[in-house]
């Protein structure tokens, strides 16, 4: 799915990174634990989370994530949105629970990363 399609699917409000809405996302991860995200997220992924601090943007940068959706109607503080904007990360807020968001995206064709850790070849992209 493109990020623009994800925005439409979730009826989300884009907070920053509008210029990158055409990028494609191939998998998603739902987590409020950044260490879990670091362990399980694959290439070209998006993160759905209820955490709104700067660590989410830093984690996204480490993982080269395409976009982050803040669920349960959460909106990060302006400095965090500023960091994301500077990094070219698309962020959005969704007034739905994480479960509902995941369901809508799955229905839309997006899949999660496999539970097992990626093989070294996959991790190498």
């Amino acid at each position, binding site marked *: 799915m493109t990020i623009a399609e994800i925005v439409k699917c979730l009826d989300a409000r884009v907070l920053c990174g509008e210029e990158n809405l055409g990028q494609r996302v191939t998998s998603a991860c739902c987590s409020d*634990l950044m*260490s879990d995200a*670091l*362990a399980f997220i694959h290439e070209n992924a998006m993160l759905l989370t209820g955490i709104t*601090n700067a660590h989410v943007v*830093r*984690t996204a940068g480490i993982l080269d994530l395409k976009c982050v959706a803040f669920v349960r109607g959460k909106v990060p503080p302006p400095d965090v949105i500023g960091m994301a904007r500077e990094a070219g990360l698309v962020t959005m807020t969704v007034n739905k629970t994480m479960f509902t968001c995941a369901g809508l995206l799955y229905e839309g064709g997006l899949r999660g990363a496999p539970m097992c850790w990626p093989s070294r070849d996959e991790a190498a992209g």
Partner: protein
Amino acid sequence: MVRAEYEIASGAYDCAGEVSSDIKRQLKQLGIDAGTLRRVAVSSYEMEMNIIIHSLGGVINLTVDNEWITLFSKDRGPGIPDVELAMREGFSTAGEDARNMGFGAGMGLPNMKRNADTFNIFSQMEEGTRITITFRVI
């Protein structure tokens, strides 16, 4: 050959991730491939967070030569009482403050080990923990 040393303070949540971002930037400038870059960045981020969350402060050393990228961390204690337990996925002693910020999933050490080509840990109570992880340059 590249060498860099980063001092990391205990509890420095505000600047957590800055060291890893710098390491990633440096490696990118050296032309390291995207997959290796990602594995090193994830591991250094976990290393950095472990020092911030669990230790009394420490350092991370980055060394790059033609064949290997090496990350070495050394902290000033208190040390890990049971390393085998700490290596178990999901086991964490992180406090409420770390968890509120999205850390403490108990994936730090296993995540480092999984991403690196070699992983070595040595910990002694009262003295501290030393971790060496290496990545083969493709």
